[in-house]
């Protein structure tokens, strides 16, 4: 499995699209000048924009990498030839997944370094009202990375039974939007002040809320931007949620992939 992982990483590095996305991440360097547009919170705006930018870059990587890595291999018949070797299907799948994950972690590391440099630059010129909590900033990027790894597992899941890249890519984008919105929709639908929602819709929304991934739990940006204390219990529970959900997704993906006809 390790050889598959390394081969996957090498393959990604060779494909220049992903270099392109990372270089686009250097747009973060324009943030010091953009953040001066704020009236009262220049450092906070710098942190906001840097974290948003990093998150978006990781989303692009997840969607286009996660959605196409498996599909490309199947298309080019590499999978077919690789599986003739003494390697189980699950090792192959998990090897490929690990390769993508490692690349994403490296990207997240690169993006955090650029983010930290940019925020440091801004806080030197404009003194922040509250001290910058660097730990919170790194935790925010780390949890964004965890979120996108979970999203990648969805991309892989779609790839295991899809024959083109459409479902993995658009399905991943759809899961991302739905997962990010689920908490807000659930709160809106179940709020006592909301009257125009039928009980049927409420029941469906609640059921979906419990099944669909809750990505907003991984959004710790506000703690980084405004130097608030991290809610440690919630953060630990989210990490636990991540482990369990990821395991479920990868298990289902492995089962489906195991039964797939590959010519």
């Amino acid at each position, binding site marked *: 499995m390790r050889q598959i992982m390394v081969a996957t990483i090498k393959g990604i590095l060779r494909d220049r699209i992903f270099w392109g996305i990372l270089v686009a991440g250097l747009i973060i360097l324009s943030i010091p000048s953009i953040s001066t*547009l*704020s*009236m*009262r*919170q220049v450092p*906070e*705006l710098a942190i*906001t*924009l840097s974290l*948003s930018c990093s*998150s*978006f870059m990781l989303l692009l990587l997840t969607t286009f990498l996660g959605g196409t890595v498996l599909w490309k291999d199947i298309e080019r018949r590499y999978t077919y030839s690789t599986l003739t070797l003494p390697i189980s299907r699950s090792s192959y799948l998990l090897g490929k997944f690990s390769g993508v994950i490692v690349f994403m972690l490296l990207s997240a590391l690169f993006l955090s370094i650029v983010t930290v440099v940019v925020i440091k630059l801004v806080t030197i010129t404009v003194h922040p*009202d*509250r001290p910058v909590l660097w730990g919170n900033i790194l935790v925010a990027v780390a949890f*964004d990375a965890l*979120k996108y790894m979970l999203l990648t597992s969805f991309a892989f899941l779609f790839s295991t039974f899809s024959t083109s890249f459409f479902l993995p890519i658009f399905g991943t984008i759809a899961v*991302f*939007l739905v997962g*990010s*919105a689920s908490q*807000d*929709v659930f709160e*809106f639908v179940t709020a006592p002040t909301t009257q125009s929602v039928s009980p049927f819709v409420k029941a469906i929304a609640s059921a979906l809320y419990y099944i669909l991934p809750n*990505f*907003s739990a*991984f*959004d710790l*940006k*506000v703690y980084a*931007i*405004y130097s608030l204390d991290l809610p440690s219990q919630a953060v630990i529970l989210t990490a636990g949620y991540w482990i369990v959900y990821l395991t479920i997704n990868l298990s289902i993906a492995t089962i489906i992939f195991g039964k797939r006809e590959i010519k």
Partner: protein
Amino acid sequence: MAAVFAYVLLIQPFVSSMGAKPFAVKLGVIPRAEAIKIGAADHKQSVAAYLVFKVMVYFGTLVEKAENKVEIPPDYPAMSRILHSSVKLDPYNMDAYYFAQAILVWDVKQIKLANDLLEYGMKYRTWDFYLPFFAGFNNAYFLKDYERAAQYYKRAGELTGDELHVNLAGRYMYEAGRTDLAIAYLSAMVKSAKNDAIRKSFNKRLEALKEVRRIQQAKQEYFNKTGKLPASVEELVEKAFISPLPRDPYGGTFYFDDKGEVRSTSNFASKSAAN
């Protein structure tokens, strides 16, 4: 090659025609805050910052046009709606509260709305003394609710350890203290304002109130010397109790109302602001 040549010929007239298009300064319509929240995924704070920026640019454009004598009445309700949406997305965003205080209080006189917004912000920005400071000022200067003002100033004092805030709670019990309070408040705001349009707006008001204080002090001097109250502001000028001539930056003339308070025919508002 010919195409490139044609481009070079065409580009200047094209750019001129784009520049000559009638410029509609509008804020446009934005979706409800709940809808934006759902669409904003994990970028809520960035979207909130963008909304405030939108309002700022709109207002700045109008202020610039007003200086060039093109008076376009600002769409304050739309600005207020967008700022309210912004704080629903990011309740910690200070720019939104700051701007809302600037326009809701002075230009639209929606004091209660401003205070409600500040109260909402105080639940989140628990470390920030500016929010109770603004709320205290609003209650003292406009609503004349001295008790609530004192409560807010006390909170501001607790956050900063600054005696001024607590002192202010006591000062505006006195009639003259109201003008002094406003002058102190606006002086602080002018100093800390980083946005040109807002700073100019505050400065204008500050100049007007300083003139009011000058007249009040001259009136007091007149009373101390003659035992009577002056009939008009002109009388103070004629009898040399005040020099130079008081000037209202809003273009009005100062007079004494029937309670003897200093007022101006401009009511300290630019012509386009709703009263």
